[in-house]
């Protein structure tokens, strides 16, 4: 599914714009970075409450399609800067990780 469609349906705030037609193939939820590295699959959208710069490295290294920050947490400025450099889209939602996942599930992701 196209990331742009997910952004519309989630009513999420776009913190870092997707540059191209990013495809989302699955979802991973987690805040432990080692676990995300080990378990998230390529083109997954990653739901987390972590907002520091290292989430960009994790997303880049395992080719995640986007990061969704749950619970409306504020994203660090250096995280945003790095995500722009690395072309990793970041979305922000006031919803909980569970609620975001439910919505994605209903969308058929």
């Amino acid at each position, binding site marked *: 599914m196209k990331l742009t469609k997910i952004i519309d349906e989630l009513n999420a705030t776009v913190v870092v714009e997707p540059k191209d037609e990013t495809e989302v193939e699955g979802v991973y939820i987690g805040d*432990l970075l080692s676990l995300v590295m*080990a378990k998230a699959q390529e083109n997954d959208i990653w739901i987390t409450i972590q907002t520091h710069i290292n989430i*960009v*490295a994790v997303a880049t*290294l395992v080719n995640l399609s986007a990061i969704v920050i749950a619970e409306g947490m504020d994203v660090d400025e250096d995280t945003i800067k790095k995500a722009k450099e690395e072309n990793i889209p970041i979305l922000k939602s006031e919803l909980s990780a569970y609620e975001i996942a439910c919505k994605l599930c209903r969308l058929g992701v």
Partner: protein
Amino acid sequence: MNKKDDTIKLEYDIIQNDFVRAGEASSNVKKILKQLGIDSKIIRRVAIVTYEAEMNIVIHSYGGKLLVEISSKKIEITAKDNGPGIEDIEKAMQEGFSTASNEIRELGFGAGMGLPNMKKCSDVLKIDSEKGKGTTVYMEIFMKSNQN
């Protein structure tokens, strides 16, 4: 980047507690492997082990180096730090065991999965550690791997 006898050698300095630059070495290695046209499954495994090794140096050591050697047969990864050394390697290899502080854990690190992840993703893993001196983690990932 040095190229000698078809072996590419990469070397990165890793700085203690530098969470802003942390992950850059691994990202750089990944980009180079991609440019070389290496299989994406191999790249994923190298990305995981280099990231875990890099983060271990950032979190637990006084600083060190990440060395990567790419040849046609295998990728060798060496993470070498300047101490303080691992007290009990057997314990450190257990999933869930970590000596990281609460502050570090709140950032999502220190899950006690670094070394176990490295073991799972590599074909060879050797750890050499001396208390007070430092730790060297050496890994090999074969180009034609059983894990694929």
